[in-house]
């Protein structure tokens, strides 16, 4: 079984559009696959692939300090110790916790002479398991607002997708990644086989692609890329050259096409709804190239 992660560095270049159509097209060709949405901050793949919910569970992977105001004497040791600046002195001289700054490391608890501090689990997010309207098992999640540990939640999403994939004898786990190159992206790339980098023909998208390629290479993934909205500028050829040089050959060029927006408005993969559109045809070509590049 292979695992392919769709990433981009820069957001909004078309990861979900590409992932949804790939899932649909590969499935149509008889490939067994499971899908996962690793953009746990703002998941959206389920909107396009449809999700019939099988189960959901709350995920408590985070830790936060809890201060017992009755025991606390206001000595301030925790405030000066907290490595993240999450504790500030309140009007009563006792520490106040900034929820979003606390990483739950427990340094405050260690130094508190009154045993007034405990470290408690906190909700990281919701883990959601189901099936796409095309029958493929799917795992997704919703991170709590402002939460750390998106990477841990991404790991859980991947584990759930893998479990489902093994049960169904799937050959591929297709992961729609998060934008950026930080925690959730690293967590989606570690141990995966391939990275498909989506870019649009702008310098900032190319910069993002180069940064995420650096991370993918660091973790030993095989990489390829796809140029989306290929004709919105004349920057395409320069981007293609740079990507080829960086070891991520461009498998297809998808033109800017109203059909993509129209399909999105219908909450369907463009490859399903408008297969004869220019974007639809390019996505078909991409799906064949992805199969040849990553799965053969």
């Amino acid at each position, binding site marked *: 079984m292979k695992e392919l992660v769709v990433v981009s560095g820069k957001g909004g270049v078309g990861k979900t559009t590409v992932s949804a159509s790939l899932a649909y097209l590969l499935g149509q060709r008889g490939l067994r696959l499971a899908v996962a949405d690793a953009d746990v901050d703002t998941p959206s793949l389920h909107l396009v692939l449809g999700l019939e919910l099988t189960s959901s569970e709350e995920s408590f992977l985070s830790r936060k300090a809890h201060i017992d105001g009755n025991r606390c004497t206001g000595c301030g040791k925790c405030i000066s110790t907290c490595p993240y600046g999450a504790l500030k002195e309140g009007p009563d001289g006792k520490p106040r916790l900034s929820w979003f*700054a606390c990483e739950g490391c427990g340094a405050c608890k260690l130094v508190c002479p009154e045993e007034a501090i405990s470290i408690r689990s906190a909700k990281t997010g919701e883990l959601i398991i189901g099936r796409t309207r095309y029958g493929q098992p799917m795992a997704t999640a919703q991170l709590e*607002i402002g939460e750390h540990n998106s990477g841990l939640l991404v790991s859980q999403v991947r584990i759930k997708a893998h479990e489902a994939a093994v049960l169904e004898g799937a050959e591929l786990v297709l992961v729609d990644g998060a934008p950026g190159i930080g925690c959730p992206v690293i967590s989606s790339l570690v141990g995966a086989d391939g990275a498909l980098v989506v870019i649009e023909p*702008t310098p900032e998208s190319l910069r993002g692609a180069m940064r995420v390629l650096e991370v993918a290479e660091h973790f030993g993934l095989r990489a390829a890329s796809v140029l989306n909205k290929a004709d919105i500028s004349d920057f395409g050829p320069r981007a293609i050259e740079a990507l080829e040089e960086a070891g991520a050959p461009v498998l297809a060029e998808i033109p800017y096409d109203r059909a993509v927006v129209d399909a999105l408005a219908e909450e369907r993969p463009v490859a399903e709804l408008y297969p004869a559109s220019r974007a639809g045809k390019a996505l078909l070509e991409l799906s064949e190239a992805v199969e040849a590049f990553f799965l053969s």
Partner: protein
Amino acid sequence: MAFRIAVAGGKGGVGKTTVAINLAVALAGRGWPVLLVDADVDNPNDHVNLGIEPRDISDIFLFAPRIDEEACAMCGICAQNCPENALLARPGKPPVFFEDRCSGCRICQLVCPNEAVKEGSKAIGRLFSGERGSLKLVGAELRPGEARSPLVVRALMEHVRALLSDERLSIVVVDCPPGLGNTTVRAMMGSDIVLLITEPTPLGLSTLKLSTRALEKLGLKGFVVVNRADISGRGLEAIKAFLAEEELDLLAEIPYDEEAVRASVRGAPLVEVAPSSKAGRALLGLADAVDAMARSAGPRSPKA
């Protein structure tokens, strides 16, 4: 106190950077001393779009333990207490340190009975700055392979606080990262208003709903900007229906405009190179609205 505007929106690629740089340039053009903060530390691009060559200010360091092997009693207490399992105890030997896992919490240093954990550090990113007329840019960049974007934003916002205390900057525009996790929340906190940028698609609407919930939770005041507003009539209607329900103000509708793409490829802000283009006019209209808000915020104005 400077008037602080966060440009956010949850979903990636909806136009946060386009809005942030054009707003900053337009306001600077009206005489406001503007600080633009590029807090999209995973992928900072404001300088690229402004055609600025940034200068490095400093690296951003995180504490990392350095084990003094002479002093180490090989007791393993540091490894037992490390919340990230970044230290591995070995019988009869000093612990092995896995730098990748370390979060810099210093617990190893706190618990070591022999003061064998000395100060070390690792760079997780860097701070940079640049100028463009009366516009000042500061930003930070996460080092590829590092995971701790929130701590890079923390360092950036501390730098911004220091800048604001000794420079007369009246307007701060923060270009936030995508998502609604810790990194984004840190970039938004302390803002007077948050511009939520969205696009008229189900993905845009879904993320706008999440962003609205986030602002409620954080007690921040949001205004909505729909980018590429004309790509889907149905999508725009759906967003407007949601805004009416939530009593949220729509501050601007920016049409899809290839001029915007060209400006981005050239590394020049649209409000300067094509102010009379469709998107350019909408962005200038947005700057008018924000200008008025900054003025009515009173004592923050530059002359006060």
